């Protein structure tokens, strides 16, 4: 069963230099919320930003990772 810490590490490995916060929403290891700030998102549409994150986990999203809620920002967004 994946943990929030594991998801955070894998996103950080895939997107070097990113700031990542992952929360296990239910405590059950299958519903997660990830907030990511990365310069890799620069110039990408929101759809492509989210696809970049989903791509880290491949088929696990919808499988062991039942739900992964994502919020993406670039360092310049300052939101």
């Amino acid at each position, binding site marked *: 069963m994946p943990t929030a810490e594991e998801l955070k590490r894998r996103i950080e490995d895939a997107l070097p230099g990113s700031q990542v916060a992952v929360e296990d929403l239910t405590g059950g290891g299958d519903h997660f919320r990830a907030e990511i700030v990365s310069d890799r998102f620069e110039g990408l549409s*929101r*759809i492509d930003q*989210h*696809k970049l994150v*989903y791509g880290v986990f491949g088929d696990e999203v*919808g499988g062991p990772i039942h*739900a*992964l*809620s994502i919020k993406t920002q670039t360092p310049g967004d300052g939101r």
Partner: protein
Amino acid sequence: MTNEEIRSYIAKAIGENEVMLFMKGSPDAPACGFSMRTSGCLNALGVRYAALDILPDPRIRKELSAVSNWPTIPQLFVRGEFVGGCDIVTEMFESGELAELLGVEQPNEGIEERPVQKGPIGLENRLG
């Protein structure tokens, strides 16, 4: 029903419905919190939309994800274009982008405070 028939039905649904939501359950009885929030955004905007429940056959979700290259449900399409899943639709609702995309006024109320629209366009689900 073959996988090709399912994929062609999905393509037709996206092509023929200006606002097309693929979800778990229905707008009246959503079967997942993410689907509920996404249909709630559309309800709050008061737009008419078609909704298709992907739960009756696991192949619907598989074929849909092959079309959209998006792994999760719900998925919203407007005028044939993929808009996003729950997170993106919610962000766009809150920022007013969704209202703009759909050509309606941004409501003052939030998502939860509006009842489900009367009579969403019922798509006959022949995929079950």
